[in-house]
């Protein structure tokens, strides 16, 4: 049986709380939850993912940091590992918004520039 977790739904401002666990591949929820919240809770239980946003160093004198983001949500457990990898990156101008800064930071997902770095 998968571990029992106290989870909060974030789909709407109600923030319903459910106890969630897994048995033989099926996710069960105990507590108030609606049809919009169920898929969120199930996904969040099985494979919680987050978009990581941070900044990286630049070689520019004008602009010290470049904001970056993962192009898609990455597994929550890889957040700190990704931060460590990104702490070593130093970006040279010029870079356009959306350009890949670090490929495959986790699960085949790239980190891309969230802003232009022109000078």
């Amino acid at each position: 049986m998968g571990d029992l977790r106290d989870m909060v739904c974030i789909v709407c401002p109600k923030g319903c709380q459910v106890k969630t666990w897994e048995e033989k591949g099926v996710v069960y929820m105990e507590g108030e939850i609606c049809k919009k919240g169920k898929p969120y809770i199930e996904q969040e239980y099985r494979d919680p993912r987050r978009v990581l946003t941070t900044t990286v160093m630049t070689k520019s004198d004008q602009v010290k940091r470049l904001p970056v983001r993962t192009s898609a949500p990455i597994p929550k457990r890889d957040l700190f590992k990704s931060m460590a990898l990104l702490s070593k990156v130093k970006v040279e101008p010029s870079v356009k918004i959306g350009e890949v800064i670090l490929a495959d930071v986790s699960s085949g997902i790239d980190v891309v520039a969230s802003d232009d770095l022109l000078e």
Partner: protein
Amino acid sequence: MDLAIIGSGPAGLAAAVKAHQEGITNLVVFERDERPGGILRQCIHSGFGLEKFKEELTGPEYANRYIKMAQDLGIDIELNSTVLELDKDRSIKVVSENKGIRAYGCKALILAMGCRERARGSLDIPGTRPAGIFTAGQAQRLINIEGLVPGREVVILGSGDIGMIMARRLALEGAEVKAVLEILPYTSGLIRNEVQCLRDFNIPLLLEHTIAEVHGEYRVEGVTAVQVDDRRSAIPGTEQFISCDTLLLSVGLIPENELSKMAGVSIDPRSGGPYVDELMETRIPGLFACGNVLHVNDVVDNVSLEGEFAAQGALLRIMGKGYTSDGMIDFKAGPSIGQVVPQRCTRGRDVWLNLRVREPMGKMKIYVGDILRKTYACARPGEMIRVKIPKKALQELGPSDTTLQVRCEEV
């Protein structure tokens, strides 16, 4: 010039782009920072643009959409230019390093200066005055733009969105966030942030707590946290010392209306911003306000929408098609409603009404006079509600119906 816009954040830029698209090409945007985009530049997290662009963008990505539109249209944005004075006849005095001090007049002016953060001085937190106390927005600017970490062991006062977002930001950068303290029994930000900024990082959230004292001679050494009762008074005996080298304050945003007040614009004490109508015109004809200078918004897409309304209003004034306040309808906020913006409207078009409830509520109905009724599953003060009042409903009112009460009742 025909139109002057003060501020190149999401409100000012949306107003500029819309104005230009509607034919006002003789316009200038004044921006005091070195780059356009306003506060979005430092909001590097995602969650912006879901309504406007149907995508989940970061702050800089959202700003870039408008900056590129403005560039493509050839809109003049004067950077490093601070507006020092504004008069009720819309004359302004601007200073910049490369052009010195200049004076301008214009046919219409849009205020889009955004808001400030409430700081320690207005909170009267007892204790010493050591280094290491920042507002959450200051810390955000330091980390995301200057590349500096403000400290290593952090306590955050206030659970608004900025406080929670900075808790996550600091945790990701290797700081230890010891606690987020919130004086109310609920957070003032989005549930999503409670989960993704605090729970995700096991950061303790202490509701009904505040800070009784700050300690440290030259640098913060710790704070005394204390529990409060339902009248927000400290409960003796509940004090606990939390060691830290940094204190972040996220305790309120205040629309920045120094220039507006200079010009004599009437300010609504409930919203902290000017009284306006549905096209964002203040009580001084020709002066408009949109975005956080008008009222603190939750969703940037609404800020841009307000900028577009302001541009439409400015266009009418510039073309000499402005309207008088005869026959305008005033919105009166009922007891459970904290604020309503706009505060009045004409009967000339659909009206988007923005309101906040005073306290969290379960299933409830919002009533606008007798002409509109809408049900909601729940409401929190931290999540602004928007209601569309159709023009037809306003036009069906009698000429002596000049007030509409906005109220809500739990079902």
